[in-house]
């Protein structure tokens, strides 16, 4: 009888760690043929539409980068939290907290000098997301409440807070829809490329990659967070204040997600709506995993995801394959990446038994 066993393998060289996510992406794209074929799409035509829709023209390319901005921020948020084993599944709610804060300030900061408005909104949006994430971090460290469950449940609490406000005090006067009024001009992100929606938020997201990389690699805090992630007990006995590390991790993680919400509101929607996020917070989890929790990896995986999401729209228009295929591909990408990551540490051994 032949049996398969997983056995530890020698550490792979550096190039393999770059090659593996690339291979995972390729395998995912190959597997995507299954739902495309099931939906009756022509394969070459569909893939062409996917990539043309995402990258084919200047406008499409810029739209892809715009889509990348929130995904990159939520991806970084999740990656930063997961690295310290703070299971933040709540980026979705933290994003909404940021958007909610941006709306409130964007409607009320009328007498403030215009050059101060955006910085104030961004800082407050960051704090709103960060504090919303600090709640489950506190519950985890002080009361041992499972962070997966509490961050998930808080997403629903935030959705309903938003709903209550959009059907209540924040509702646009005279409107019967759950939407706010438009924020003031000074609160809008500047557009950086003519004839497009390419905005400041994209640069902020890319800058965040370097900031997180710097924190991870060059600061004591980054080292401590890593130690907490590897083994919280050992870190504790090694003299690290693990409670404070987890709290700060949550604050920064939630803050990044909050910034994503600020960007969606102040650069694209200009008013709060219930559908402010089509699940960016959840996509952030996949993006973080696909990027192997490394900020530069997250940059590339968020780019890959925005290509898929923007491209799927075009594919849907041209070939009739439902655009929800983007979500299917996201799910597949995560599972493929997981399996690939496993084989960076393990190899399959064939054991023969008589």
């Amino acid at each position, binding site marked *: 009888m032949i049996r398969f*066993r*997983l*056995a530890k393998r020698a550490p792979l060289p550096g190039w393999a760690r770059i090659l593996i996510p690339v291979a995972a992406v390729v395998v995912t794209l190959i597997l995507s043929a299954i*739902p495309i074929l*099931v*939906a009756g799409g022509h394969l070459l035509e569909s893939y062409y539409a996917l990539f043309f829709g995402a990258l084919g023209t200047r406008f499409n390319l810029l739209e892809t980068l715009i889509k990348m901005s929130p995904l990159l921020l939520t991806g970084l948020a999740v990656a930063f939290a997961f690295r310290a084993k703070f*299971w933040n*599944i709540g980026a979705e709610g933290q994003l909404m907290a940021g958007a909610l804060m941006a709306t409130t300030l964007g409607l009320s900061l009328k007498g403030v000098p215009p050059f101060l408005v955006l910085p104030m909104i961004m800082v407050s949006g960051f704090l709103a997301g960060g504090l919303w994430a600090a709640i489950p971090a506190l*519950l985890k460290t002080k*009361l*041992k*409440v*499972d962070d*997966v*469950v*509490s961050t*998930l*449940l*808080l*997403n*629903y*609490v935030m959705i*309903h*807070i*938003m*709903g*209550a*406000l959009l*059907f*209540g005090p924040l509702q646009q006067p005279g409107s019967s829809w759950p939407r706010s009024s438009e924020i003031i001009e000074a609160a809008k992100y500047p557009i950086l490329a003519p004839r497009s929606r390419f905005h400041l938020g994209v640069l902020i997201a890319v800058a965040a990659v370097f900031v997180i990389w710097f924190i991870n690699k060059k600061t004591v805090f980054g080292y401590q967070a890593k130690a907490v992630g590897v083994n919280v007990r050992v870190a504790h006995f090694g003299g690290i204040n693990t409670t404070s590390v987890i709290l700060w991790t949550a604050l920064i993680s939630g803050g990044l997600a909050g910034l994503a919400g600020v960007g969606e509101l102040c650069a694209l929607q200009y008013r709060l709506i219930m559908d402010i996020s089509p699940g960016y917070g*959840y*996509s952030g*989890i*996949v993006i973080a*995993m696909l990027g192997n929790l490394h900020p530069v990896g997250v940059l590339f995986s968020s780019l890959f995801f925005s290509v898929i999401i923007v491209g799927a729209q075009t594919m849907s228009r041209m070939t009739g394959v*439902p655009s*929800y*295929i*983007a*979500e*299917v*591909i*996201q*799910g*597949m990408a*995560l*599972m493929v990446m*997981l*399996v690939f990551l*496993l084989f960076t540490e393990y190899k399959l051994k064939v054991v023969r038994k008589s």
Partner: protein
Amino acid sequence: MSPMLEAAFIAGLLGAMMRMATPIIFATLGEIISERAGVLNLGIEGIMLMGAMTGFLVTLLSGSLWIGVLAAALVGMALALLMAFLSVYLGLSQHVSGLGITLFSTGLAMFVYRLQVGSPTVPPTVEPFKQITIPVLSSLPVIGPGLFRQYALTYVAWLLVPVISILLYKTRIGLKIRTVGESPVVADTVGVNVNLTRTLCLVAGGALMGVGGSFLTLAHQNMFLMDVIGGRGWVAIAMVIFGNWDPLKGTLGALIFGFLDGLQLRLQGLGFKIPFHIFLMIPYLLTIVALIGVSRKATVPAGLLKPYRREEKTG
């Protein structure tokens, strides 16, 4: 309120409680079986959505509600098998594989629904399950009409509570399951196949999660909406902790959630001048509060979250 109205209100509230608790009971029981064997299945939310979608679609196509429920169970089992492959056989992080299953199933549910139904202005509906009135019991004063005029699936859920309790605590199979969840090494030593046991528990749990999802589209409502599960899978995960991994106590938690959910529906109907989202928030908030109450003294199955690889002697 007059006594008559009061009785009607209580009956309505009890009925709503039983109804809203049903999918949570199914999901909580499914999750308890999985976690007792040592696997946290965070795929639950996605599995329930696939169950809801599949149950609805199959009923729409076949015309039979029970075939729909069966299909929901089967699809739940299939997804749980995928979960077992990732988390049990490959030993990947249970957190991440579960979330992967949820994201994948969520995408798949919406994709398949769109593919089959398209995007008509009026979504298709099925003729949902009818409530079954149990004679004698349903004429009990006050509680009778609320508790004993329910959907067949609700009665099934209630039947499953003692069945699974007995299975877990009073049978050899249950002993095996609990040993695998507490100490895989011991289980392995006495000749229990750890990975197979975990897989079977996941698959059985997946079936229950799928059926729980289908209740929402075949009984509670008669159509499929993208947000039909609305976090009920995560609530079930919370109920497992709340119930300290015990089917009876978990069901009690589900019942409390059902009561709050039913209450908020009633309160909305009474026309307060408060946005109804405040009411919608209450069950989730109180679930978190409940977790705060129990989490410190929770006794987690010791083998939970730990993949078992014989060579490495983990767990």
